[in-house]
């Protein structure tokens, strides 16, 4: 039974969760991707393998981690490996089917900037930097991106190529010798986007319930392409919504209690 009373962020998280399959091995970014991946695990994909870059493999946290290294990730994991092993055997080793990323700044080809706003040497705003993203973007089978739309985040031209999506589009990845698919899916609070198979530009394929083309364009800094056959994202089901809300409630209770790290 689908629900009608949900927020755009809830729709975003649930639509992103649906994209993960039970057989996926997913490298999870923090924030929105983490919520989506755990909703997937708690609903249709109980056997999905979630990997955080802190070294936890096959983790099943009961609350969302505040950081990629929260104690519960290790406690519930199948195994916890060192960070060098994580990046060598697991990411570079080609074991990860999906990398799930957020973005501070993104362009229509899925190139992401989380490094600086402005010039690199004299930045207007110094952002955290790439972390694992440059190699997640090139080593995972494909990349899913999730973010809330805004003209500040979705821009015509990003200030810095922190991680490479499809570059200037077309076969740019292949020209650089990258053999993985790169960004194939973007889920925002307004729509579901897929990359065009030829140009590799993000294209809206589903509008979330109640969202119009104009609303999507209003919060996007480039001229949006829409699919010829534009569909509507199915509303969250009762179980999806309850799973997400329960997860958020547990997370809020745990983190405000100041006892999140671990409880061995």
């Amino acid at each position, binding site marked *: 039974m689908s629900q009608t009373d949900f927020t755009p962020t809830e729709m975003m998280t649930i639509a992103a969760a649906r994209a993960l399959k039970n057989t996926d091995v997913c490298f999870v970014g923090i924030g929105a991707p983490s919520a989506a991946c755990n909703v997937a695990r708690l609903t249709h994909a109980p056997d999905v393998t979630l990997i955080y870059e802190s070294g936890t493999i096959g983790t099943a946290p009961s609350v969302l981690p505040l950081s*990629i290294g929260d*104690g519960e990730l290790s406690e519930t994991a199948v195994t916890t490996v060192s960070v060098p092993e994580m990046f*060598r055997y697991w990411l570079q080793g080609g074991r990860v089917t999906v990398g799930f990323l957020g973005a501070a700044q993104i362009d229509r080809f899925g190139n992401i900037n989380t490094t600086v706003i402005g010039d690199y040497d004299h930045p207007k705003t*110094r952002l955290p930097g790439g972390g694992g993203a440059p*190699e997640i973007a090139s080593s995972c089978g494909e990349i899913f991106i999730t973010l809330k739309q805004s003209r500040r985040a979705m821009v015509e031209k990003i200030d810095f190529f922190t991680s*490479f999506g499809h570059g200037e589009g077309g076969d740019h990845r292949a020209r650089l010798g990258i053999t993985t698919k790169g960004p194939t899916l973007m889920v925002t609070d307004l729509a579901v986007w897929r990359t065009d198979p030829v140009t590799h530009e993000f294209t809206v394929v589903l509008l979330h319930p109640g969202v119009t083309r104009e609303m999507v364009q209003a919060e996007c800094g480039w001229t949006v392409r829409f699919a010829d056959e534009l569909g509507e994202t199915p509303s969250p089901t009762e179980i999806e919504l309850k799973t997400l809300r329960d997860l958020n409630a547990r997370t809020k209770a745990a983190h405000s209690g100041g006892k*999140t*790290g*671990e409880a061995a």
Partner: protein
Amino acid sequence: MREKQIMAQFMTLPEAVAQNLNSGDTVAFEGFTHLIPHASAHEAIRQGIKDLTLVRMTPDVIYDQLIGMGMVKKLIFSYAGNPGVGLLRRLRDAVENGWPHKLEIEEHSHAAMANAYEAGAAGLPFAAFRGYKGAELAKVNPNIKSVTCPFTGEELAAVPAIRPDVTFIHAQKADRKGNVLIEGIVGVQKEAVLAAKRSVVTVEEIVDHLSAHPNACVLPGWTVSAICEVPGGAHPSYAHGYYSRDNASYIAWDKIAAERDTFLAWMKDNVLEAKPEDFADRISHLRSPA
């Protein structure tokens, strides 16, 4: 070949910092969310050691503090943020405004840093990995080069090994021979210690026997320079099996670090006029059930 190894020496944290950290050193205070060596960084601040090149994959609150106190010449890193909270405001002030002075930056990806520590531990001069493809860091960081596979012709990224003068880490336990046990999220700490010329390990407790799993992450005593018992020494980070993460402190840091004067006042009260023994009190409400 390294110099002859000697057994780790047990000493106080002020002694360990004084003996092992010098102005101008390249130093890593490593920890991956878990087991961040806060007490060691605070002691370094109290001793006023300057011109440091700081290395770390994930600089967070302690690096914000070291930078804000003007002790840092250069930062080598891959992700600088307050986990789950936001940006590092003292780091931003240094990079964007040059306060308290300019900060040199050498920026990598996590994969590069992890491989570079691994190469340091392995005694190699560089690390090769498949990375930086299409990534702009390769254009702004001259320490990102390439090597070609002599069998396939594939071009791989290459970065220099990380070899700190000294590495500080926090661990759960040491035994009386100085063997150190790290459990749970082990991060890159073993590599950071083995890559360094010297190392200082603060521990929650010193025990008669580690009783460690045969394949647990253990640093033999002869790989460590100094061991200091500092209960709570990771706070507000956590120590798996001992106490949980103090999320409220991380959230509070964002506001403290927002302004120069609130930052300096906090540092005076909580670092300059504090001592290693204060950490035990700070985690008393976060202790894990026994």
